[in-house]
């Protein structure tokens, strides 16, 4: 430990060097998972025991407490993934590209969850599990973008070339995010408009909003924890022969 802290010097790219980033990410991971669990417990309590029954949808509306956070995360994570990928491409920082690769599986998972919870909500509310509505279709395209990113990276052996190819794909795919976000305004199809927006006050009961925001923060915290956990494994996989990895291994500080 002491040898590590002596060698590394603080600066702009302090945390972009693997040997300083690795222990930091490890400490943060546990905290984000704990915070996620606490927020989820609070959010579920508010969502099931405080928020009232919806006047038109009955109890089925309670799916939104996980559907909306999953859908938000699927879009946020894509933007953050593209941002890290772009930083890795422009600044040539390895850890930035690894962050993008670490976010992708969790982003894909959030997209799948948004689609499944959405169809379980759509069945009792719209009478169908799936419809080729603009919002649903563009969210499905988002899933294919995540899967395309993962498949492309997996197909290229040289990690830095895989990073660059993935970054280009991720950046091109960013155009889909505003399409998802504005789809309910641009096309008048089945998916309803947003109840929570940046420009209007929310059109839902305060306790419903509170439950949804708590769950959204829990999803945020979980996603950050998962991405940080995964990026440490990616770091080790790519730098298993490096001196810093062997030093941490010798000091039993890899867990």
């Amino acid at each position, binding site marked *: 430990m002491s040898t590590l802290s002596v060698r590394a010097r603080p600066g702009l790219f302090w945390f972009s060097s693997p040997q300083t980033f690795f222990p930091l990410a490890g400490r943060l991971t546990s905290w984000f998972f704990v915070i996620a669990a606490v927020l989820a417990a609070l959010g579920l309590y508010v969502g099931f025991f405080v928020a009232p*029954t919806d006047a038109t949808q009955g109890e*089925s509306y309670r799916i939104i407490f996980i559907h909306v956070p999953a859908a938000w995360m699927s879009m946020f994570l894509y933007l953050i993934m593209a941002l890290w990928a772009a930083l890795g491409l422009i600044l040539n920082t390895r850890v930035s590209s690894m962050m993008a690769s670490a976010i992708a599986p969790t982003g894909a*998972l959030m997209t799948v969850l948004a689609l499944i919870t959405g169809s*379980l909500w759509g069945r009792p509310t719209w009478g169908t599990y799936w419809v080729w509505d603009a919002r649903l279709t563009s969210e499905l395209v988002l899933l294919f973008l995540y899967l395309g990113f993962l498949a492309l990276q997996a197909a290229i052996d040289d990690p830095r070339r895989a990073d660059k190819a993935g970054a280009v794909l991720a950046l091109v795919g960013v155009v889909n995010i505003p399409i998802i976000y504005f789809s309910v305004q641009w096309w008048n199809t089945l998916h309803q408009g947003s109840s929570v927006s940046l420009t209007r006050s929310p059109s839902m009961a305060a306790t419903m909003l509170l439950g949804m925001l708590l769950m959204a923060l829990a999803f945020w915290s979980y996603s950050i924890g998962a991405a940080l*956990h995964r990026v440490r494994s990616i770091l080790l996989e790519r730098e298993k022969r490096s001196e810093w990895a*062997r030093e941490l*291994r010798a000091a039993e500080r890899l867990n």
Partner: protein
Amino acid sequence: MNWGSAADFWAMGGYGFYVWGSYGTVLAAAAIEIVLLRVRRRRAISEVIGSNLEMGKSTQTLGDR
């Protein structure tokens, strides 16, 4: 309080399948992801150990000479 009884709670006003199906899917997904993360971590660490052992072997042969 929204629910008169535990049965009321699980029934979710007749939407139990959809509500619990959704929450169950999210819970299962998080559980699976966490297991996969741990498996990947364990494998990554063992690869470092592997390269570490090779290192140790090569220095030992050097020392034997």
